[in-house]
């Protein structure tokens, strides 16, 4: 799949999956599109449908109600699709570990490829993650 991934890396289209976050990571993702950070210059574009996506940006600890929907989104996405967990929430559960409403193993719901640490991660950190992902795709 090397040739395919290299083509993909030229212009990654991302879809944003908000799986019970606190909103902040979502806002920071949108912030990436606005003039200060403007990731569109790297060909990265936020798309409205998961069927157009190459990358899923997942924010939040996945709760019980949203988990089947997140799973379904992942199944609907054309493969190969790369899943990036944005923030401490998908990485370690943040401060919601003791909650009665979050799934115990997020990896079972959706397989993550890249994690970005931070609560919320700075936009620079997210750009860095995507750049690293592009590096991996280019082989």
């Amino acid at each position, binding site marked *: 799949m090397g040739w395919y991934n290299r083509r993909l890396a030229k212009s990654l289209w991302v879809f944003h*999956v*908000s*799986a*019970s*976050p*606190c*909103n*902040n*990571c*979502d*806002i*920071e993702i*949108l*912030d990436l599109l*606005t*003039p*200060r950070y403007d990731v569109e210059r790297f060909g990265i574009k936020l*798309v*409205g*449908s*998961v069927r157009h996506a190459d990358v899923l940006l997942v924010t*939040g*600890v996945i*709760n*019980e*109600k*949203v988990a089947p*929907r997140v799973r379904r*989104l992942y199944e609907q996405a054309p493969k190969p699709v790369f899943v990036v967990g944005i923030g401490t929430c998908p990485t370690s559960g*943040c*401060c*919601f570990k*003791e*909650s*009665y*409403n*979050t799934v115990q193993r997020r990896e079972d719901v959706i397989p993550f490829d890249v994690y970005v640490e931070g*609560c*919320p991660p*700075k936009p620079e950190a997210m750009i860095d993650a995507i750049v690293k992902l592009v590096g991996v795709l280019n082989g």
Partner: protein
Amino acid sequence: MSQTVVPIGPFHPLLEEAEFFRLSVDGETVTGIDTDIGYMHRGHEFISERKTFTQSIFLVERICGICSTSHPLAFVHAVEDVDNVEIPVRAAYIRTVVGELERIHSHLLWLGLAGHFIGYDTLWMWAWKYREPILEIFETITGNRNHYAMMRVGGVARDVPPEAVPPLLKTLDMIERKMAMIAKAAADDPVLRSRLKGVGVLSRQAAIDYCAVGPTARASGLAIDVRKDEPKDAYALVDFKAIVLENGDVYDKLVVRVLEIIESIKIVRQCLEKLKTAPGPILNDVKEVTAGEGIGRYEAPRGEVFHYVRTDGSNRPLRHKVRAPSYVNIPTCEVSCKGIPLADALITLASVDPCYCCTERAVHLVDARGVRITPDLLQLSRDKTERLRRDIHG
């Protein structure tokens, strides 16, 4: 009359958060709206009752990423209310600075998203561009762009050193010029006028009936503002106006928010001037919290946020209850969305600046053995009807 239902969500390009709306439409006209929440519920109150007061501050901050000062502020007000703790005057000014800066960034964020919802992305890019300097100020005084962790029971966590004030004032001047420009441009913009004027009207009576709060209520002529009605922190010491408009349409909600940004800048400037000289510590160390009850209110960007804590003398809250402003504002869409064209429904929904992360509630069902079940409520209710019918008819 046949009715069509348009489902929106849970994952929809225009929804930042996962929510589900069921719009009933007749032709192009919206006849009803139903909301299904719970996709973001994380059980804050439950977790908070297992954390100490100081840990809880970090937790309530993460109720919502945009109101990440309003919730901690209301929470520390509630804990302080138990023992009537006084806070040092310098801490009061710092709290107000952080709270008002948050209002500016939140309103700008809404303004941008409102532009995005009506397909006017220029406004989005513009508003968010000028939001960045505010986040930079936050980074200077709190160390983070969002989630500031500034509040403590009895004061604040970090000082704003007097030598940091002049550069902040300079940035503020720049922001004020840009905001004046945005305010004028937004008010005169023909696109915004024709898209928003007279759309999604919430009458004064409906605002009262639905207990609307914040800019949603103030745009409908209801003068309620916790900062004026029950001034805490430094709000009694600064001079500002509560903005109240009459029409209750989306355009007025926009204007209220834009004018509030200008007022907030005024408040921040007054507080920063005072911080140059205001003496004293920033934290009044609270060693223990006695048994009792406390309530805390704060005017978040979206309206009044309310926290209640009951304590038993230990270092944790026995009960912690949160009511966020969107919880009362979102149902107002029931009246404001009725009878408007489908194309206007989304901006009307967005006009209350809904924050679902704050609002989330969940229903949990356990069966007779205490095992948690997650069926859908409709099915359970049908089963019950079946059971009753069988019982009656034998």
